[in-house]
């Protein structure tokens, strides 16, 4: 505001030019205030400019949930390891990065009753573990562990990992007739974990894990 007043004082001899200068300043200020996109010249994000990219998430083994089976009261720890993990297939453009967020409930609840979240007699603590494989194969030996904090696992990786060597040229952006699906590849998510059965009531215990995938 102070800068505008100074400009008015110095251009008192030319009213038309004064109006022009003030108007430009005001428009410039409005433009800067309304623009919430920070300027970044270091990264070219081709995904931002294309609505033709697609991504899909599906179950590799639909009939199998993450099931710990029948356990006995006070049995203690029980786990599902990587080899027996729930497998999700992630199909997308191979040269793009994806952001993966996996969030698990902290407890399995008797009959899924939310009232058991604060009742130790009808809840079983669950610890999430997760990994991904992005070499084009469903192979746990090629998997990369995902760090889990408070039952939330987050990772960013390329759908298809680049082979050794320097990065290749930038991918071809979308143009008319270009079909990015022909460059699709499949990555795999492995979801597993463990529970600890204490002195809880007998019955069926359930919880859920949500998985969200975004292109970077």
């Amino acid at each position: 505001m102070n800068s505008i007043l100074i400009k008015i004082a110095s251009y008192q001899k030319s009213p038309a030019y004064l109006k022009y200068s003030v108007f430009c300043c005001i428009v410039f200020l409005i433009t800067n205030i309304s623009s919430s996109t920070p300027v970044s010249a270091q990264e070219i994000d081709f995904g931002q400019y294309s609505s033709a990219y697609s991504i899909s998430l599906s179950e590799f083994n639909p009939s199998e949930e993450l099931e710990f089976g029948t356990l006995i009261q006070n049995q203690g720890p029980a786990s599902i390891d990587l080899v027996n993990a729930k497998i999700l297939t992630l199909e997308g453009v191979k040269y793009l990065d994806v952001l993966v967020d996996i969030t698990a409930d902290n407890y399995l609840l008797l009959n899924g009753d939310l009232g058991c979240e604060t009742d130790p007699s009808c809840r079983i603590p669950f610890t999430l573990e997760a990994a991904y494989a992005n070499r084009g194969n469903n192979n746990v030996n090629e998997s990369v562990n995902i760090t889990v904090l408070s039952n939330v696992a987050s990772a960013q990786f390329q759908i298809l990992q680049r082979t050794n060597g320097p990065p290749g040229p930038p991918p071809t952006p979308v143009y008319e007739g270009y079909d990015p699906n022909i460059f699709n590849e499949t990555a795999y998510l492995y979801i597993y974990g463990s529970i600890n059965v204490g002195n809880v009531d007998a019955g069926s215990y359930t919880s859920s894990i949500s998985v969200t995938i975004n292109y970077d």
Partner: protein
Amino acid sequence: MQLFSMKKLVVSLIILVSTNHFLFAQEQNIQVSGDIKVGANIVSSIDLITVQSMTFGNVQPGQQELYVNPINSINAGFMIATGNPEAAFRLTYLPEIVLTQVDGTSTLTFMYEISGNSIENQSTSELLDTENRSIQFSLEGRYYFWIGGRINITNAVPGNYEGDFTIEIDYI
């Protein structure tokens, strides 16, 4: 001239502002999501209680075999298993064990017979074979076993004999 230039500048600035908002609207990334269900079935632990041990009573002179019928003998052993109501379980046991003389080294071979019932009624219990048989707890979470068997005492050395009998019960 100045007004014409100003008009061009204003138009340019308006286009710049409008374009900037259009690109911002296009920043929404593609997203997919899914849910996975986690489950576990918790059952009560299985307990096996021995209510009565099996006895043969006194051996009569000339008697060659002792037999305790688990279905109708008052000398039969009696055990109660408790667990998850209506849950199926598997019974495993060795049908033949060796009894050892208490004050000696003689041995006798005993062949077990077991009968079972979901209600506490020995006379209506049924013989259970040694194959890993699937049985079910009652609505109250109980199952009843009676233990009998036979032993050949033709060449047995007089004395007291004892041995352990083991049953394994597992949920199926």
